[in-house]
């Protein structure tokens, strides 16, 4: 390496502690900004350039740099997103959080000809905004790369096998890399399209739930959550709570979904009919249990739990069906004795004797 390169390398060694400081600060601000905007990413990689890597760079093109300030990737961060749309969201966030040197930043996605495919990534050269840290730290540039997970996979494999390699890669293999890049771009777009379609589907289902068109809404995790927002079990819960003037405490109702599906409910209309058909019997079952106690605190799962037990018994499931329900909603373990006790009480009720 020439004396100029040696000088730059020495400047880098002296700057390293400040780069470590900058790395922590930038990472922290980036993570905070992503969390604030609820953007989920697969990873944020970060590194300070290794000395041997910098030495190689200076040997190749050291004359290009007057001082170590001109080397913009001594600190590098890479944000890897799930979706291609999120790359632009992260970029907007980076521009909002740091000062971007637009002259030196590059959108590699736009460098391709219409009929060529290859490295797709967005590289921003940034600095901390003036006043957000001491002046010297705010002057140090750093690079943030943004790309999707699939772009990351492609560029990592391409980097290991092509770029910077000592061996000239034959044209046919380079073309194969290009074809793979095109395919991954297509897959990235499909993932984004799928996410948007799912979001549309959720919105549509929420509208149907809100307008009461429940027979058109299939029962699944998303629609169940929307349906719960209409608080369909409140009336039954309040009725049961009134037995002992009990207070009702919120409880998760998600664990009941597999039970409803096992009870052959396919749409939210089925769920509504299940409530209407069983609410009185579920109330009576709850009363046989709570009426002989002074328990005055219940959870909001009490109505649904009794509804499920009543429906399972009406379908002829007997005690094993109660065991299955209890197993699904709790990690008690052995629920046989408890199920027998519930079954015995239910056996005294009209719905079990009028079959």
């Amino acid at each position: 390496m020439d004396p100029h390169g040696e000088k730059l390398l020495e400047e880098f060694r002296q700057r390293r502690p400040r780069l470590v400081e900058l790395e922590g600060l930038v990472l922290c601000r980036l993570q905070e900004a992503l969390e604030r905007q609820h953007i989920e990413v697969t990873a944020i990689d970060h590194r300070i350039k290794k000395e041997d890597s910098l030495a190689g760079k200076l040997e190749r093109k050291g004359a290009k740099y007057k001082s170590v300030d001109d080397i913009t990737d001594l600190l590098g961060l890479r944000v890897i997103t799930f979706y291609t749309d999120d790359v632009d969201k992260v970029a907007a966030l980076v521009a909002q959080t740091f000062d971007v040197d637009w002259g030196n930043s590059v959108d590699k996605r736009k460098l391709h000809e219409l009929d060529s495919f290859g490295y797709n990534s967005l590289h921003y050269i940034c600095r901390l905004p003036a006043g957000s840290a001491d002046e010297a730290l705010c002057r140090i540039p750093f690079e943030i790369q943004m790309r999707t997970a699939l772009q990351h996979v492609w560029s990592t494999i391409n980097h290991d096998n092509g770029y910077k390699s000592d061996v000239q890669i034959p044209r046919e293999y380079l073309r194969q890399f290009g074809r793979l890049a095109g395919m991954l771009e297509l897959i990235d777009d499909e993932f984004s399209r799928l996410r948007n379609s799912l979001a549309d589907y959720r919105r549509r289902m929420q509208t149907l739930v809100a307008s009461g068109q429940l027979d058109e809404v299939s029962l699944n995790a998303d629609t169940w959550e929307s349906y719960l927002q209409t608080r369909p079990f409140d009336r039954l819960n309040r009725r049961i709570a009134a037995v002992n003037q009990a207070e009702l405490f919120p409880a998760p109702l998600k664990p009941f979904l597999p039970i409803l599906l096992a009870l052959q409910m396919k749409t939210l209309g089925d769920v509504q009919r299940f409530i209407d058909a069983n609410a009185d019997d579920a109330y009576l079952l709850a009363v046989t249990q709570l009426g002989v106690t002074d328990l005055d605190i219940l959870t909001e799962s009490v109505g649904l739990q009794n509804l499920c037990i009543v429906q399972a018994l009406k379908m002829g499931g007997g005690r094993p069906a109660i065991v299955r329900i209890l197993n699904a909603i709790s990690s008690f373990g052995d629920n046989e004795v408890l199920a027998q006790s519930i079954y015995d009480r239910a056996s005294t009720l009209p719905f079990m004797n009028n079959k």
Partner: protein
Amino acid sequence: MNTTIKEQNGEMVALFEGRLDTAAAPQAEKDIQPLLATSGQNIVLDCNALEYISSSGLRLFLTVLKCAKAKGGHVFITGMNNDIRNVFAMTGFTNLFEFR
């Protein structure tokens, strides 16, 4: 009613003995204060020697659960007899807690 708190294998363990009813709840509430002061450790409510639980006892367990959850901890209940299980089932408390 007796409540003993100890630390075991990195978890806070509360051992309840006797009847956790309305009369016993105020003292038990004082006894469980160390559980509310933990910094996200898991908590085990050992009910092997607990004979009975009333609404006051359920509220006490709920206080522990809310406090632990807010700090990212878990609350496990262990050793409940059939009567107490029954109380948990009929009140809908079964799917609030984790059981060992």
